[in-house]
């Protein structure tokens, strides 16, 4: 492996000073599960690594309606956070799907978005949750939406000398549920063929057919029953990963649902719209036609899962597993 110096500043200020002093020669390292791999694969060759692990206070999760996540919060901490599992479920799903326990114990959320892989597990949940990213350099602070944050595969709005200081998720509407699904070839340690996040805010938290949600009944049957309940979708967000150069929101599909009464046909239509809007590619992991077909399936299922989480919040804290 290439040799590098390793600096461990004690404060964010100190880190910013070092980062602006060494400029291009230096890279920031959080958990290092991407950075060290990239150095080993020779796709990154820094002379200096500036570690953020010695700085205290960057690994806090704070909740008072809105949520603040420190950049050094690990995926394991997110997966384990009762607050995130209950209120921001899609993000907990994503953290649970990422890598393995070993990776989740060290890999951080800011690291995941700064690597900016089109497949980043936490990206689509952050998109549907409306996250904002607080960025700091030596002179000033700025906040950008997570949509603006991603510019291309491996590219973000971060300029040299800038550090992600905090992730903010605004207070969600009442009766909101969200869910993330990672379509992958094996059940652990894989990159997704597709990442699908959906967030739905409903106008009620009780529905007559809620008992059916945990049954094996086909989704269309359950949704058909739901129509009798006249559930109105007050807010909806749909985000897809590995379906375009950056994680992205299917706004046309969202527009079909927003303010409407939910029905099987309408969800079908929205899922179809998301699939049409997407620009998946043929890659070694899967072909575009398959991804497009699966978008249709998974958008609908994650919408169902979101509804399920509104009406039965205690029943489904873990993402579905097939084993």
């Amino acid at each position, binding site marked *: 492996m*290439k040799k590098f110096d390793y600096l461990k500043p004690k404060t964010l200020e100190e880190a910013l000073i070092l980062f602006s002093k060494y400029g291009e020669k230096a890279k920031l390292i959080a958990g290092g*599960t991407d950075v060290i791999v990239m150095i080993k694969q020779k796709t990154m060759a820094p002379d200096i690594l500036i570690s953020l692990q010695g700085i205290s206070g960057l690994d806090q999760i704070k909740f008072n309606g809105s949520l603040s996540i420190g950049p050094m919060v690990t995926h394991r901490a997110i997966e384990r956070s009762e607050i995130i599992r209950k209120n921001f479920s899609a993000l907990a799903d994503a953290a649970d799907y990422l890598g*393995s*326990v*070993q990776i989740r114990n060290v890999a951080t959320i800011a690291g995941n978005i700064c690597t900016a892989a089109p497949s980043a597990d936490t990206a689509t949940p952050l998109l549907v949750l409306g996250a904002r990213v607080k960025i700091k350099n030596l002179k000033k602070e700025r906040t950008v939406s997570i949509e603006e944050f991603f510019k291309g595969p491996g590219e973000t709005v971060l300029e040299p000398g800038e550090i992600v200081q905090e992730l903010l998720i605004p207070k969600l509407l009442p009766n909101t549920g969200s869910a993330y699904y990672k379509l992958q070839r094996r059940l652990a340690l894989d990159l997704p063929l597709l990442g699908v996040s959906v967030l739905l805010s409903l106008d009620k938290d009780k529905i007559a057919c809620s008992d059916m949600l945990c049954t094996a009944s086909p989704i269309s049957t359950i949704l058909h029953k739901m129509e009798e309940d006249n559930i109105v979708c007050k807010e909806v967000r749909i985000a897809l990963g590995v379906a375009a150069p950056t994680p992205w929101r299917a706004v046309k599909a969202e527009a079909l649902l927003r303010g409407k009464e939910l029905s099987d046909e309408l969800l079908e239509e929205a899922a179809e719209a998301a699939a049409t809007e997407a620009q998946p590619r043929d890659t070694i992991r899967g072909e575009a036609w398959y991804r497009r077909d699966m978008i249709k399936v998974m958008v609908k299922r994650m919408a169902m899962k979101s509804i399920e989480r509104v009406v039965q919040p205690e029943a489904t804290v873990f993402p579905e597993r097939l*084993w």
Partner: protein
Amino acid sequence: MKQIIKFSLNGESIEVEIESHLTLLQLLRDKLELKGTKEGCGMGECGACTVLLDGKTVNSCILPAMEVHGRTVTTIEGLTDAQGNLHPIQKAFVEYGAVQCGFCSPGMVLSAKALLDENPKPTEEEIRHGIAGNLCRCTGYLQIVQAIKAASGQ
């Protein structure tokens, strides 16, 4: 650049001068001659290099050695007791034939230990989820899952 780090390794505190680009795995195997920890893929995917850092599993092949300063590292060598007796998880692995070539075993045992420390009575699903970061190409995992279940007293 060389730097001195201090940390607790298998219950003993040690101080060692290292080149700052070393991974924890290189430090353990090449400098400290602890060969129990294995290098498989070297990219954090197979889990053969799993060790415990402050009681939590990490892939030592992609962990900068500089990060263990002031922390506690447990390798497979640290699992036996003072008389050299195997840890109950290791005994269960032997009993259930959960070891064939043995290359994944140190990592697998440590992942099992971290799992049981946190969740003393895991379900089979939780066991499988807990060892999902450790690849085994011999056993098909069945005996490993059985061994971990037995070690948890179930």
